[in-house]
């Protein structure tokens, strides 16, 4: 199935013409790599479960909105929606993000998707994280490959108990999750290290684990449930704000798979929106002065059906919304092509008008300083004509 790429916002490079040189001349802004990767911070928040993008950023100005969404159409007044640009509005539960948008610290990319067109969470997440156009094509993730490609490699870590596929790969990364256990002394750990001499997997995990332990202070409470996300983001900022800290990180928030009882201005989805916004805001506050060198990407593996299903929810869809926020971001805009709700993909989903890899690549190029050739060949293989022309950073 062919991708629908926007003519206006996305660069098309004919397959026959060379690649980097052509791209360089077509890009409107020259990027001098003044910022070493070391200064810039990048946090990637993976929203697992297929977030309903049309509920987060509501195209109330679209004439077909109410019909298309049916029972999932949001009631429209200023207690439920925060107007962004006269066409799109943000769900009120995302108020803290709307404020970032209004401060021009946030860019919204709507009708965005990966190349994946089936409806398995598992495969879609794998593809979104492996950075190719095929699920399970690689056992490494694009963000890890990006870390490995930077010279020097910035420190990177996963916030949570598991390192997501996106951050697995050749570059060694750390991880952190709340701890209820007393530390063990270094002497003990050096004995463990001797035992791990012949076990590369355990050895590298121990090495990274020790580095991170040395950065921590105090014991953490272990809040359960989705509120844990807010604490995790707060903690993430303590690792990322310092100059010598981790400058690339991932975090995750689930609970988006609202097949039933999704709710509208209130309810399950609204509650999750509030947690997301609070967590991102806590992160922003924690980053302090470093926020102006920070970018955060939030993405989800696919969206949900435009029309509600029979059980007060929505089923698996295609396009959704992605957020790029941070002090470094040239924000206050909604980017990409908006396909409208008159014609739906397979008569059920928002049309995938924009390829999210284009956004990721542009962030890595403009903010982290990776070269286009590297991004096309190594970080996002098979994506040579997927680029985002816009100046995403100030």
């Amino acid at each position, binding site marked *: 199935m062919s991708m629908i790429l926007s003519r206006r916002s996305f660069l098309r490079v004919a397959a026959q013409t060379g690649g980097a040189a052509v791209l360089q001349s077509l890009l409107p802004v020259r990027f001098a790599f003044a910022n070493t990767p070391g200064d810039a911070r990048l946090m990637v928040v993976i929203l697992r479960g297929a977030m309903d993008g049309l509920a987060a950023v509501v195209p109330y100005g679209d004439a077909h909105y109410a019909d298309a969404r049916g029972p999932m159409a949001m009631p429209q007044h200023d207690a439920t929606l925060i107007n962004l640009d006269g066409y799109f509005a943000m769900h009120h539960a995302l108020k803290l993000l709307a404020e970032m948008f209004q401060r021009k610290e946030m860019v919204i990319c709507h009708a965005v998707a990966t190349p994946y067109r089936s409806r398995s969470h598992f495969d879609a997440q794998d593809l979104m994280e492996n950075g190719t156009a095929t699920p399970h094509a690689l056992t490494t993730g694009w963000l890890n490959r990006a870390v490995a490609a930077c010279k020097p490699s910035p420190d990177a870590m996963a916030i949570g108990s598991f390192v997501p596929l996106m951050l697995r790969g050749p570059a060694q990364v750390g991880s952190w999750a709340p701890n209820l256990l007393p530390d063990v002394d270094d002497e003990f750990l050096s004995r463990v290290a001797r035992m791990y001499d012949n076990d590369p997997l355990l050895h590298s995990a121990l090495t990274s684990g020790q580095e991170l332990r040395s950065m921590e202070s105090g014991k953490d409470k272990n809040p359960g449930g989705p509120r844990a996300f807010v604490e995790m983001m707060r903690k993430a900022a303590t690792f990322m704000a310092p100059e010598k800290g981790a400058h690339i990180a991932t975090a995750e928030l689930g*609970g988006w798979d609202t097949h039933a009882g999704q709710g509208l201005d209130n309810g399950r989805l609204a509650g999750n929106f509030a947690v997301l916004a609070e967590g991102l805001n806590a992160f922003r506050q924690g980053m302090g002065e470093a926020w102006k060198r920070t970018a955060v990407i939030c993405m989800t593996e696919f969206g949900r059906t435009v029309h509600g299903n029979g059980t007060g929810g929505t089923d698996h869809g295609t396009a959704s919304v992605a957020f790029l926020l941070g002090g470094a971001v040239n924000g206050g805009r909604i980017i990409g092509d908006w396909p409208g709700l008159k014609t739906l993909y397979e008569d059920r989903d928002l049309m995938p008008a924009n390829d999210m890899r284009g956004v990721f690549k542009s962030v890595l190029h403009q903010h982290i300083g990776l070269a286009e050739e590297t991004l096309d060949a190594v970080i996002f293989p098979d994506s040579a004509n997927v680029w985002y022309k816009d100046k995403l950073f100030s």
Partner: protein
Amino acid sequence: MSIVAFHACARFGLGAAPDELKAIGNDPRGWLLAQLEHPLIPAGLQHLQGGEELMGEQLKSLKRKTRDKSKMLGLFARKLYMEHTGARFAAQVQSQQPFIERLVLFWSNHFTVSIQKGKLVALVNLYELQAIRPHVTGYFKDMLLAVCQHPAMLYYLDNSLSLGPNSVAGNRSGRGRNENLAREILELHTLGVNGGYTQQDVIALANIITGWSLDNDGDGPIIRYKFKRQSHEPGEKLFLGKRFAEGGEQEGIDALTMLATHPSTAQHIATKLARHFITDNPPPAAVAALARSFLDSGGHLPTVMRTLIALDESWLYPLAKLKNSYEFAVSACRLTGIIPTAQKAVNGLEALNYRAFNASSPAGYDDIASTWSAPDAIMKRIEWGHRLALHLRGGTNPMQLAQAGLGDALSDATRQQIQRAPSGADGIALVLASPEFQRR
């Protein structure tokens, strides 16, 4: 060969209990086969109850919006979860049939029901006891049917809300079909994502199983399965190229039977079993043999297990798999003889950032090393083992523990570190931190 006995214990069992390696002796395959012949329900799990009533009450209270009552019921439900989870943990720590217990864990993960949907805390252990455990030495199709008719699964994947668009209830209420369970049956439980089904098949199966619902009405508080004819989508369905005539509940039973013995299901299950029991990247020949066994036996799981035990590949790669957090905790308690109270068991798992039945999606937990080897997770295991070692009373000799637990798998590097440990507790902690104990 002691390493073969160790391998049977670690890979097929739950890690050696103090005298287990000795008991296995030189017939590890026989040890496994005997368990398949006479599976027993652990004593500690025989009287688990209360979950159906409690969850039923919770759903009623939700409907009636009685907030204080809901809060109280929620507390009771979490307490019941803790008791049941603790009982399961203790049972697995003490089990003399650890191969059977491993199969329960495998299938329970395959047919994941998660407490991420909070109302399931009271029922989730009973789900495993009622829908999974009785069938691990039976036919796959019987497990599949039991799972799909269990209130926990019907609630978890929203089928209890699903109404056929043209059914009596659908017409009356304006609510409609929910495809969540149907999709996951195809993608996760049977054919697998590339097993050859289309979106139309998902819809067809969803229609077929409309009416597979919950009964929580009437005066009794108990929640149970009920086929609701008025919710069932009428008419013929075309599913995987086959016509299913209108037949009420039987349509679903027939569809599941068809799925249970489908070649794609055999391939999908064989791959997962090979990944669990052989290596993260399962050898294709082993997968093919298991799939053949599954297909030829009509999905008779003991037959498939016998094929697995007989495969050369099953014995070629000791220590190739990394334990997951739960396996690590259970095996540590098995070896050290520590049987925690329910509260301590649950807290102990929390300290590893693990919560039973808490998978973030219906796909369950991954079964590969990279999922369980985040640096923080490994550090936590090391710290956890150290704290456990401090709690051991009396003189447990670290070298003896190492020999009892690891047998001939004990490496020179590990032996050396244990011998040089400055204290008994450190020595024991080193056994638990060793690569031979972290792996299986």
